[in-house]
């Protein structure tokens, strides 16, 4: 420790906002006229007053031209003059009480698919209502001349609507046919197109029956389902991408003059000298060249206690530097670092997992051949029996129209939309409908420990020490941001009358101060005192070299952890812990929760465990947050990650929960299972409808009126059944969660 180190600390702190500013500039895009546009995600915005505060605060910053909050997506768009220094957006928002983080340029683009769907929906809605209006006049007994006129008008409205709105289905059907597969859109497209062609023919020959209304209102109904489905997925996706990124994206390259320049992490080469300030994440795998600090590796390896770093220590990319500034030598490129290794493991794991086929596609694969064969049989039968080609083809097409899977097309998405919405309200983001289906099938749950079952911050357990010693420790600890210090400052009350002078933080060692004539030290036992007996404690307080208090720390359990494990077990699932942390910590937690636990696992060991279980016929749900969990998240049948998870983990997971409580996991499983039941009910309803409707159609009794009533009736039935899901209970009461949060791992000991 020399005076130079202190100078470096000051430089690093001054540059703290510089790093954020540089990231903002890198992530902004050109808005024209010398302006740059930045999108920030501000999850805390929920009312008009917040909106006004944020817009006012940001607009008052020098260099800001315009700021506008989007309350629905909880984002702020700021335009600022690019020629000036980057305004301190994040700090300003923090000052106003809002946490904000940057948005990627790519993820802040609009959603073209959604606006295309909405337009298609509007067009088909307009067309179907107008055609229906004309059809009602026909059904109420228009004379032949008016009927032909109305058919002609309907055809003129239906053609552009079909060409525009129908494309959504035709494109998807064509794509799947070209790959030799069939999905739900194939029978839909065939049904709609044939109905339109038949009606056109009937119109030309002035026949009595045309099915324009059926064809277009079918598109309208299906587009409603599809748009809702897309909306839910998009909302969940944007909520997940709006979360804070944990990886470093800029690195500080050390200059010759003691200063530093920012470079993108991708440009770091082995051998480069980098600075890592306190509070920064290590950008690439590196070796410490100069400085002493404590490193939080929980997100990298799952070890919960901070590790000491000194000259020669090896640091892995993604670890968080806690206390002192470090100068490090890069050992690898960003693409060869620990993170990249995890991504490779993840890709390998994903290849091992067979592609999941959605229920709707499986149903369509069975449904389409049956329906098409029935239509063909009806055509052959009628032609053979009567010799009337026109009549035979009309009846065959009527069979296709009546069986056109309107209810089937809505059966699955409607349930999943209601389920996703229900989970969204509880702070659980479901990436897509397939995730719900997979989640309903799981029978084994693997839980990570650090950051998943435990909250990640240590909890203080006082071992020894009198009242005065404890209040000295509290006063001293309140000056540091080390996790152990924060835990002490949180748990103990400092005595205001105490006077401590010359408080210094010694990175990697502890805190030092003068109390009267004595030197007070709070920190590592070997540093704070010469007594050997104290070695088993994590932190001690010494006065003139004599220990006066000892402290120990345990992980705080994530709120709802016990309830969640209990709920999962009572659902009949096997639950176990897989962790990278030390044996003792993991086993204690396992005993406390009453479940099996395996400790000190490498990332590849977790994947191996999942592969073993899969070989035994199990379907595994992985719940984890660290970089080390990412490959396991990708390998598992279904996966859930908390919002605090590492970026790659969050992307690999099927479901991300934003709330603090782990109760989100059993809630997601329960709703997924319930929605699976409803999907099956809906499919049964659709089949039952066909069992009644098909004989009527084959017998030749289907008129356009019958088709319209039957199809709308079955669709409405399916939608109503799906809505039953929103009524189910299961919201964790906030009161209970708070009580859980206070409970410590220690309580049982």
């Amino acid at each position, binding site marked *: 420790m020399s005076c130079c180190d202190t100078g470096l600390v000051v430089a690093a702190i001054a540059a703290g906002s510089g790093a954020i500013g540089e990231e903002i500039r890198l992530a902004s895009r050109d808005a024209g006229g010398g302006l740059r546009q930045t999108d920030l995600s501000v999850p805390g915005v929920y009312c*008009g007053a917040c909106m006004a505060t944020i817009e006012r605060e940001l607009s008052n910053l020098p260099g800001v031209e315009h700021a506008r909050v989007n309350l*629905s997506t909880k984002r702020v*768009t700021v*335009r600022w003059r690019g020629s000036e220094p980057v305004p301190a957006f994040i700090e300003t928002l923090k000052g106003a009480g809002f946490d904000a983080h940057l948005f990627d340029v790519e993820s802040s683009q609009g959603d073209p698919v959604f606006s295309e769907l909405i*337009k298609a929906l509007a067009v088909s809605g*307009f067309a179907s209502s107008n055609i229906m209006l004309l059809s009602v006049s026909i059904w109420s007994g228009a004379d032949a001349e*008016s009927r032909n006129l109305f058919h002609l008008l309907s055809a003129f409205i239906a053609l552009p609507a079909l060409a525009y709105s129908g494309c959504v289905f035709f494109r998807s059907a064509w794509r799947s046919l070209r790959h030799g597969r069939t999905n739900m859109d194939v029978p839909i497209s065939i049904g709609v197109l044939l109905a339109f062609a038949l009606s056109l023919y009937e119109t030309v020959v002035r026949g009595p029956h045309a099915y324009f209304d059926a064809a277009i209102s079918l598109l309208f109904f299906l587009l409603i389902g599809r748009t809702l489905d897309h909306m839910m997925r998009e909302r969940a996706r944007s909520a997940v991408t709006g979360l804070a990124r944990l990886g470093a994206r800029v690195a500080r390259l050390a200059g010759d003059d003691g200063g530093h320049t920012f470079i993108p992490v991708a440009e770091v080469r082995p051998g480069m000298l980098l600075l890592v300030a306190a509070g920064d994440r290590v950008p690439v795998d590196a070796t410490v060249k100069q400085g002493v600090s404590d490193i939080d590796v929980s997100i990298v390896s799952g070890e919960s206690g901070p590790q000491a770093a000194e000259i020669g220590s090896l640091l892995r990319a993604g670890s968080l530097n806690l206390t002192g500034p470090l100068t490090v030598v890069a050992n690898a490129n960003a693409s060869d670092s620990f993170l990249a290794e995890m991504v490779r493991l993840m890709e390998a794991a994903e290849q091992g997992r067979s592609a999941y086929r959605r229920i709707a596609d499986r149903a369509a694969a069975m449904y389409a051949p049956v329906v098409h064969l029935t239509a063909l049989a009806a055509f052959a039968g009628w032609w053979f029996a009567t010799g009337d080609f026109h009549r035979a083809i009309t009846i065959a097409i009527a069979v296709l129209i009546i069986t056109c899977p309107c209810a089937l097309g809505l059966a699955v998405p409607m349930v999943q939309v209601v389920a996703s919405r229900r989970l969204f309200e509880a702070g659980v983001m479901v990436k897509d409908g397939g995730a719900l289906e997979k989640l309903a099938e799981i029978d084994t749950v693997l839980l990570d420990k650090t950051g998943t079952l435990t909250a990640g911050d240590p909890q203080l357990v006082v071992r020894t020490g009198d009242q005065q010693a404890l209040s000295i420790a509290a006063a001293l600890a309140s000056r540091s941001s080390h996790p152990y210090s924060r835990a002490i400052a949180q748990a103990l009350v400092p005595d205001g009358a105490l006077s401590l002078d010359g408080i210094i933080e010694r990175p990697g060692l502890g805190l030092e101060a003068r109390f009267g004539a004595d030197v007070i030290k709070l920190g590592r036992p070997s540093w704070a005192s010469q007594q050997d007996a104290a070695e088993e404690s994590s932190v001690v307080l010494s006065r003139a070299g004599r220990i006066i208090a000892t402290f120990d720390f345990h992980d705080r359990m994530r709120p709802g952890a016990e309830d969640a494990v209990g709920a999962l077990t009572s659902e009949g699932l096997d639950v176990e812990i897989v962790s990278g942390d030390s044996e003792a910590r993991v086993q204690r937690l396992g005993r406390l929760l009453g479940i099996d636990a395996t400790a000190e696992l490498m990332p590849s060991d977790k994947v191996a465990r999942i592969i073993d279980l899969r070989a035994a016929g199990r379907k595994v749900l992985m719940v984890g947050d660290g970089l080390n969990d990412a490959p396991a998240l990708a390998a598992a049948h279904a996966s859930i990650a908390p919002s605090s998870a590492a970026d790659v983990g969050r992307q690999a997971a099927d479901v991300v929960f934003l709330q603090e409580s782990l109760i989100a996991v059993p809630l997601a499983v329960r709703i997924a299972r319930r929605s699976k039941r409803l999907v099956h009910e809906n499919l049964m309803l659709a089949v039952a409808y066909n069992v009644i409707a098909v004989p009527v159609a084959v017998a030749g009794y289907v008129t356009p009126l019958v088709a319209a009533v039957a199809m709308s009736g079955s669709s409405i039935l399916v939608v109503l059944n799906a809505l039953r899901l929103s009524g189910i209970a299961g919201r964790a009461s906030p009161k209970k969660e708070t009580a859980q949060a206070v409970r410590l791992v220690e309580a049982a000991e």
Partner: protein
Amino acid sequence: MTDYYYLIPIAIALGLTGLLAFIWSLGSGQYEDLDGAAERILHQEEDEPLS
């Protein structure tokens, strides 16, 4: 019977106008932030959409 010849075009033209108005409002970003729009009406400050 001859009423059709002007009543039906009027009906369809009205519907079409509504459709075009909707597509225009969608394109001009009026559905970007429905929750925010509901709150903004309560605040007096100047307010324009960010084009």
